[in-house]
Every structure is written in C-alpha cells, then in structure tokens.
C-alpha cells in the first residue's frame, strides 16, 4: 500500500511527540517507584540520586499502602469526585432544561451562568472559604448570626415567644474542620463546574428534535415522560462526556484542598503525592501509579454506568 505511506509519514511527528509526552513521564514515574529516591538523607547520601543500584522492588508500594493516610486519600478522592459529578450533572441538567425555554433576558442569564467557570481554582477556593463559608466573617457567619438575632427577637413576642424559646441557638459550621473540609471542597468545585455541564447540556438540548416531542405529546406523554424518555436519552452522550472530563480533572484536585485545610483530614491522592514529594520521591511515584490505576477504574466504571442507565 504505497498510497498509505505518505499520510503515515506526515502523522508520525505528532504521534511521536504524543508518545514521548505520555510515555516519558509515565516511565520515569514507574522507574522511581521501584527505587529508593529521596531528596535529603544524611545517613544514606547515595539515595539522593536516582540509580538502579538503589532498587527497592515493591517496597515503595508497601510503604504507601501501610501509610496511615493512604486509605483516607483513596476514600476521599472517590467521595469528592463522585459527589461533584453527581451534583454538577444533576444541577447542570436542571438548569439547562430551565433556561432552554425562551424568556426575556435569556442572553444575560446565560453569560452570568457561565461566568464561574472563568474563575481560577485557587481564587475560587479563597473566595469561598473566606468570604462565604467562614463561620465569623463569611456570609455563613453573618447569616447564622442574623437568624439567631431574629429568633432572639421572636422570643420576646407575646404568645409565640414561648415556642421560640424552645429553639436552640444556631451554631455556624467551620468548614476547615476535619469532618467538613471535604464538603467545602465539593461545594466550591460544584459551583465552578456546574456552568461547564450547563453549557454542554444546553447545546445538546438545542439540537433536540421538536417533532419527536410533538409526537410524544400526541402519544400521551406528559412533561415528565417526555423528559425521561426523550430528553434524558438524548443527553446520554453529553452526560458521558461531562462525567469523563470532570472525573479526569477532579481526580487531580489540589489547590482547593491545600487552601481549605492544608490537607488536614481531607487528603486526596494528588495531595498525598505532594506530601511524599517533599522528600520521598520513590513513595510519591508509587502513589502516582496508584492514582493512575484508580483513574482508570473510575473511568471504566463511570462510562459503563452512564451508558447502561441512559442509552439502554
């Protein structure tokens, strides 16, 4: 097939570049994960340069598996990614369906809806944790103390007062605490990424066939049935795309976690890698390999699930 040669030849540089781009980092990570490689060690200065003579086998993997944060990091990674996916897809569909109808000011509303997506992740995190979620200075603190003031006022009221005195004082929630910092991360990332989902779903909704809807109306389908049997299957592919892209992005969340709690009680795999990388490159690389495996499992699992439920 001589006619195939030229196209192949012309594709070659791009393919080669891509391979190098992917394979070199992956190869280095794999290599480092099997040797002892630290940035600083007074007793074993030879470990500070990577070399096959420092071979450690699966030692790094064992070390990572036994470290107390590893399980938490995996759990947290999954918890954060799945929650964000669920929330952004649900909210995205709701908002997209809502603003797909014609209404005055549609253009402005659409632009405003998209805007969170243009905020930088670190800025997003700083804004949320300080200005919105802060228990004293943030909107949350102000709202809670406002409600408390109102309830206080009502306690003085003649008849209802006795009912309101049964109410407890509301406590603002600290989102930097161990139990709640993951929730804060989920909230801020959901806020930022819902516009992405809305954007994709909206374009897809605009290509929906109106005659199918009319046929369904004549067939006796109500609004819910039309949504369930026509719109949702129509959105199947875009949902798969949104889920895939977001899964990739959110498995590597870092800035938000760093800013909210410095990983306190809320590590994910990338954060754990970052911590190891302060000194132990070998362990960090092994964690990286675990992250690759996790990402693949999540991707396959999610695609299956989305495909099964929506496209029948």
């Amino acid at each position, binding site marked *: 097939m001589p006619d195939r040669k030229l196209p192949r030849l012309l594709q070659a540089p791009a393919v080669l570049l891509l391979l190098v781009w992917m394979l070199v980092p992956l190869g280095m990570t794999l290599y480092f994960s099997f040797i002892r490689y630290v940035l600083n060690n007074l007793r074993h200065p030879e470990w500070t340069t990577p070399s096959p003579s420092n071979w450690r086998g699966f030692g790094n993997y064992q070390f990572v598996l036994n470290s107390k944060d590893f399980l938490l990091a995996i759990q947290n990674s999954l918890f954060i990614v799945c929650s964000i996916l669920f929330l952004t897809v649900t909210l995205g569909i709701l908002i997209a369906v809502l603003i797909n109808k014609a209404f005055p000011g549609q253009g402005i509303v659409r632009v405003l809806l998209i805007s969170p997506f243009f905020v930088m992740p670190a800025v997003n995190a700083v804004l949320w944790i300080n200005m919105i979620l802060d228990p004293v200075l943030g909107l949350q603190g102000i709202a809670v103390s406002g409600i408390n003031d109102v309830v206080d006022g009502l306690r003085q009221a003649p008849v209802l007062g006795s009912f309101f005195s049964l109410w407890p004082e509301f406590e603002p929630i600290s989102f930097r605490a161990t139990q709640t910092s993951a929730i804060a991360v989920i909230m801020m990332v959901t806020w930022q990424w819902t516009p992405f989902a809305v954007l994709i779903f909206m374009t897809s909704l605009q290509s929906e066939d109106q005659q*199918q809807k009319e046929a369904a109306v004549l067939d*006796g389908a109500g609004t819910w049935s039309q949504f369930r049997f026509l719109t949702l299957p129509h959105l199947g592919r875009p949902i798969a795309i949104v889920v895939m892209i977001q899964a990739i992005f959110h498995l590597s969340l870092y800035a938000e976690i760093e800013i909210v709690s410095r990983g306190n009680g809320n590590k994910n795999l990338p954060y754990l890698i970052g911590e190891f990388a302060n000194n132990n490159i070998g362990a960090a690389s092994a964690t990286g390999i675990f992250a690759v495996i996790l990402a693949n499992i999540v991707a396959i699992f999610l695609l299956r699930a989305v495909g099964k439920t929506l496209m029948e």
Partner: protein
Amino acid sequence: MGRIVLDQVSKCFGDVEVIPPLDLTIEDGEFAVFVGPSGCGKSTLLRMIAGLEDLTSGAIAIDGEDVTEVPPSKRGLAMVFQSYALYPHMTVRKNIGFPLRMEKMGQAEIDKRVETASQSLNLTDYLDRKPGQLSGGQRQRVAIGRAIVRDPSAFLFDEPLSNLDAALRVGMRLEISEMHARMKTTMIYVTHDQVEAMTMADKIVVLQAGVIEQVGSPLDLYHKPQNVFVAGFIGSPKMNLFSGPEAAKHGAHTIGIRPEHTDVNTTDGMWEGRVGVAEHLGSDTFIHIHDTGLADMLTVRITGDIAVKHGDKIFLTPQADQIHKFDAQGLRIE
C-alpha cells in the same frame, strides 16, 4: 367513529393571518386529502386539528364533542409526521408500544397489540432494531404502526411519503389506501403531490393561502373545477388556461382545456402553433406548443407517439364539450 367538524376556524401567527375563518366537515370513515401549494397552511390546519397548534378563533368538534380546549392526547387522534419523528433511543417494539405504555396499559396487552400491528405492517423482523438501523420505508411503517396501535378515531398524515423514493412511494400509497379500506377509520392526509391526492382521496380539499378553494371528490375536481386556481392545480400536465378574444368567443373571460382533451393534427385544426419540447413517456407524449397567439405555451397530451420535430408546424383542436369557462372573477360558468 371520527366525524370532524371545523367551525369558523382561523389562525394568526402574530399579525399574519395564515388561515382566515373556514368551515369544513370530514365525515366518519372518510379519506380526506388537503392539497395546495407550499405555504398555503395545510400543515397548520392539520396541526390545529391535532391540537398541536392553538386556534385563534373558531371551534373544532370530533363526533359532536367540542374539543377546542381538549389537550392533544385526549382527542383520540394519531398523527404521522413527514420526518417520522420516531424515538431514536427506543427499539421499534418500544416505539410502537410507547403510546400504550403512556396509557398505563399492561405489558401483556401491549406486547399483543405491538405484535398484531407489526404483523400487518411486515415489521416483525425489525422489532428489536433502533430506528437508525432502518430504511426510510421501514421507518415510515414504524410511524404508522405507532399510530394504529392506539386505535384512534382518526389518523392525521402530514406528507408522510415525501421523503421516500418514487417506487416506494407508489407502494406505500397503496398500503395506506388498503389500510383505509380495511379499517374504515377517518383519515386526513396532507400532500402537495396531486397524484397521491387523486388516487387516495374520497374527498379532496384544495387550499390556497389558507382559503378553501374547493371541496369535492377527485373526479368532481377534475371535471368541474370551481375556479381557475383549482382548474390549474388539479391535473397533470396542467390545464391550458388563457383569456382574450378566443375566450370571448366562448362567452367567457378565461377558458381552459386539458392537454388530454386536445386533438392534434399536422395538417389542419382550430389553432396553429409550433412544436417546442416533446416529452416521450412511451405510453404518452407531452408536446409543448409555442406561437399559438393564445398563451406563452400550450401543452397537449396524446396517447402513443406522433412524428413531429422541434420547430414543426402543428394544429390543435379542443374537444368542444371539454372546454372549461370562467368569468372575470375566475369562477366557473356552466
């Protein structure tokens, strides 16, 4: 059951009156065809009957019951769309069963009805395919299947065959006619193909700019067109229409003669002209004739063939009893 009565029904889109108030009755079991040029409001009228489009004024009654405010699904009508409008994510089986599922019918009963419908439409082999894996004709059949399972009181078709190729169109035309003969359900069929209109209809409704020009049986329209528009619209090739002194001789403003009602001769006749294009169809020949002094071009249709070339002199004689006469308003004079 399915007697549909439109009473002073009209439709405006914004300021534009697409359909001025009109009255129309479609009897139970009738096959009514709406024909007219593109944009004349056929689809709009059909959609108003279906309930997909609101009425600006007037009322629609089905079997004596006013359904003007009744939602589409409760009118007991089924519609087949030009683009088929099948549900792309469902199999043929699910597509056909969908209206029954929406009625909350039991699964066993749904299966039975889908089975019956698919047998009568030759779809049994395709039940588990998706619409994307079917040919145009098969998709059309699925759309019809989805309509018949509901046992509607009337079927509405909006140019159902216009996406099919010529051969398939003839086949489907026959199938729909047979279906009507078998089920005896009211059918309203929109088309701009007058062969479909002539061959299928019990009653043809000719529309122009939202106005009903004439209602009648196919042969009624062919033999007694009420006005110039219907005369020119029904029949293929088109009727030759012209005014002037020749028309005045017959005491009319405009006269019309169908191509097939004109005798042709190369030696003598009433009108003289020059042969333009001759279209040989084998069984028939259509000859376009110029320079008659009557109209830009006349068309005649002769059975078999005739030995004439482009530019030859030719003579025409209209069959006297087949001349249609119209007055200055374009209305028929008996």
